[in-house]
């Protein structure tokens, strides 16, 4: 290994392990001028904690800064960044929390983290022109069964176990807000971005199944089958009603 590679490895290990490595620097300990390695050690955790807070704003507000910092440091140690852009730092935080729920004061906080990351993902997902009612009217009757309707690239569908949306909304608007304990409620949350701002709402099992089928390339006929399998008596009418709603909400793309 070259001297330069060795130096970089040792420097990096110092930062990751949060203690200075002797032998690298021109002066050390009390003789060390210029702030020394401590500046880099402190900056590393502070910068990544701040980035995690940007990506999980509501989670940070729910936990409070001190508890969030403890969590962030544990995550930083477990999952150092491989990204060129710090914007992606935290991509495994939900998984990290799900694997060790004792890190959270209440299980519903995990759903707040899920919602934070999904909102962040939709925020700068690829743009796409929305399908309009006119596009639908121009569709020939015989083309309907095989027509594939594609959700916008920004669509996120997340399974939540708690009714956390009111708390998420309140904390997103005001860090100091207080709220009642959320109730258990297994449901699917839809998040998408028709233009520049993200929208979200909850979805029932049947609609979520139909949308998931569309994201996997299902045709309108396949979508009706999925709806029928969920026990709805008039799947074609239900599918048509879903389509109308999705178009009104700007949830489907032209292509």
């Amino acid at each position, binding site marked *: 290994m*070259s*001297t*330069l*590679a060795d*130096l*970089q*490895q040792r*420097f*990096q290990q110092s*930062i*990751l392990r949060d203690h200075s490595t002797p*032998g*690298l*620097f*021109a*002066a050390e300990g009390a003789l*060390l*001028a*210029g*702030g*020394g*390695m401590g*500046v*880099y050690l402190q*900056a*590393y955790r502070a*910068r*990544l904690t701040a*980035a995690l807070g940007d990506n999980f704003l509501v989670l940070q507000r729910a936990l409070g800064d001190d508890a969030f910092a403890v969590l962030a440091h544990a995550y930083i140690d477990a999952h*150092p*960044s*491989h*990204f*060129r*852009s*710090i*914007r992606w*730092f935290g991509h495994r935080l939900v998984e990290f929390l799900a694997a060790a729920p004792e890190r959270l004061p209440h299980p519903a906080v995990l759903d707040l983290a899920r919602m934070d990351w999904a909102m962040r993902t939709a*925020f*700068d*997902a*690829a*743009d796409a022109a929305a399908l309009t009612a006119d596009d639908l009217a121009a569709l020939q009757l015989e083309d309907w069964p095989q027509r594939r309707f594609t959700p916008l*690239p*920004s669509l996120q569908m997340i399974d939540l176990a708690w009714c956390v949306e009111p708390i998420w909304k309140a904390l997103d608007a005001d860090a100091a807000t207080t709220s009642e304990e959320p109730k258990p409620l297994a449901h699917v949350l839809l998040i998408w*971005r028709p233009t*520049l701002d993200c929208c979200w709402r909850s979805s029932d099992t049947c609609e979520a199944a139909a949308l998931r089928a569309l994201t996997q390339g299902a045709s309108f006929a396949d979508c009706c089958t999925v709806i029928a399998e969920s026990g709805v008596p008039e799947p074609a009418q239900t599918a048509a009603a879903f389509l109308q709603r999705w178009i009104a909400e700007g949830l489907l793309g032209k292509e």
Partner: protein
Amino acid sequence: MRKTLNGFGLGLRTEHYRDFVESPWHVDWLEIISENYLVAGGKPLYYLDRIRRDYPMVMHGVSLSIGSCDALDSAYLRQLRALVDRVEPAWVSDHLCWTGTGSLNLHDLLPLPYTEATLRQLEPRVAQVQEALGQPLLLENVSSYVRYRADEMSEWEFIRELVRRTGCELLLDVNNVYVSSVNHHFNPHTFIDAMPLTAVRQIHLAGHEEHGSYLIDTHDQPICEAVFDLYLYTVKRLGSIPTMIERDDNIPPLAELIAELDCVRALAQRIQTEQAA
């Protein structure tokens, strides 16, 4: 044809997107942080395209890691090239540093040892980046808080030699020169004097934080008097070079930054007038 840029600029920050869209401002060009726009869509790219219509831009990266012992990240370079094609910047810059090894990114601008081996490491990499981007690459001096035992030359000697060997150009961060001069006890004029006259294409100014015996480059407050003085010295020596203010934290209203930029502009123009007389 080589692109040019003149005058005084600011770093484009999300806090000021709407201000730039809603009314014209007395700023000649803007610098974007490249990594903030390596996304698929949404507001970042919308505002980038919208504001680019009204202002020339340069691109400034923070994770090229030109001095790392890892291979250059070809996926990142492709993304950067796509952004270059979109923005058509006057030039692209990043830092003379490393940001991680073993495929990790520590998201910091870590100093390089100033050695012959480091120069040999950098030579082909600068050429590779310039070829991948189809653009000249400007490298910026960073603030540092340590000096290596391995150093064989001063930072300014290292930079001069790098320019001589690679033909790269420089983004001279005057605040970083000042911060490092205090931290490592050298005369900042010696650094400025050593800069190759024709290689410096852009200047950064910023604020820093005082920590007793050392300074930290924080970009969270106005430019201090000592950095203004060093800028004055730099303009006298290097002449008129596109100059901008970087502000990354504690970001004030745009009008406040424009007023600070007006002070920089007045200072530089005064020097030029004096020199012309």
